[in-house]
């Protein structure tokens, strides 16, 4: 496949998962808790990613300092307004994650800041399926706001097992239905934005 398909967020770090990614046609994946910083296997690249959950700015700074040298991609789940604002403007942070824990701290100002500092918003696609309807509504409202502000939205699988990894065609179809955008736009979220993010952090694809 010519288009490099990349899964930007996954927890699935065993051999079977990497095999599944290869079968499904992915070129790269950012996996949390990977043993090595980077793994290259049959034209597939797996890089280590860190997701930091933080309530205070002090702790976040400390965690980023520790993780930046060990991981390629750093995503932050803000658990307070202060952390959300800091994550939006700090250069070392690559993404801000929108999950039910952080949904209350991602407001209009935060979206405007993300836009201003050109920072993407990571949305795990499984939260849009498994959560209750009220939580889903909150998340979808934030995504709509982000799309309205032209903030880069990146979808990730957050797969914990090999069977939770989505096939690219299913990914685009599901994203298109949930976000009410065209399949082409979802494909861009899966390929171009993610590739840019990885290249920016020094991974050659």
């Amino acid at each position, binding site marked *: 496949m010519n288009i490099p398909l990349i899964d930007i967020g996954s927890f699935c770090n065993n051999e079977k998962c990497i095999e*599944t990614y290869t*079968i*499904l046609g992915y070129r790269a994946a950012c996996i949390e808790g990977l043993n090595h910083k980077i793994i290259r296997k049959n034209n597939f690249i797996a890089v280590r990613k860190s997701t930091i959950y933080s309530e205070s700015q002090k702790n976040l700074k400390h965690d980023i300092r520790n993780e930046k040298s060990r991981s390629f991609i750093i995503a932050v789940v803000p658990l307070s307004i202060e952390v959300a604002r800091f994550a939006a403007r700090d250069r070392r942070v690559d993404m801000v994650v929108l999950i039910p824990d952080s949904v209350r701290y991602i407001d209009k100002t935060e979206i405007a800041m993300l836009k201003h500092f050109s920072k993407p918003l990571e949305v795990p696609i499984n939260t849009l*399926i498994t959560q209750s309807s009220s939580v889903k509504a909150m998340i979808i409202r934030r995504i709509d706001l982000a799309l309205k502000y032209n903030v880069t939205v990146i979808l990730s699988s957050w797969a914990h*097992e*090999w*069977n*939770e*990894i*989505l*096939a690219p*065609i*299913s*990914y685009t*179809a*599901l994203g*298109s*239905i949930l976000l009410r955008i065209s*399949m082409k736009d979802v494909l861009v979220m899966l390929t171009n934005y993610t590739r840019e993010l990885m290249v920016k952090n020094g991974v050659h694809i």
Partner: protein
Amino acid sequence: MISLPLMISLIAIVFSTATLVLVTNRIKIVERRLRYVYDLITMKRRKKHGRIRKRYIVFAVISEQDLGKKDIEKAIRRIWKEIFGELSLSRADPQLIYFEPSIQRGIIRIRHIYKKECLALLGIIHEINGMKCLLIPITVSGTLKRAQKKLYMLRRDLQPK
């Protein structure tokens, strides 16, 4: 009973026809317009429904153990109901019309407007009868014949070893 918007549109048509007669003296156009108005009043002209078009989605199954046709069909219907609702399920009517257990591949028939939903659904299914599995859409076709052809041809790497 004729609704108010229809009434207004009829009056507009009659007036425009009258002006047309006065200006051009073209009887045939007038006749055609009057017939149209008459059809509208007598409800002869109704919205034509399009032909029900189908799509055939070829998919492969990767699982710990081999799965049966019935299990897969049940899982598809159950999860469709959970995600998209019962009304959507009855309209889309997804049917597993063909399943080859030896290569763990099958064909789903669906109404063409629900193709995207079906593709999304195949990605959502992670477990059937407590067994971990992955359904991978391979291709979408307009005819069963072509779908069956593709079933045996494409993506040999997805076949169980």
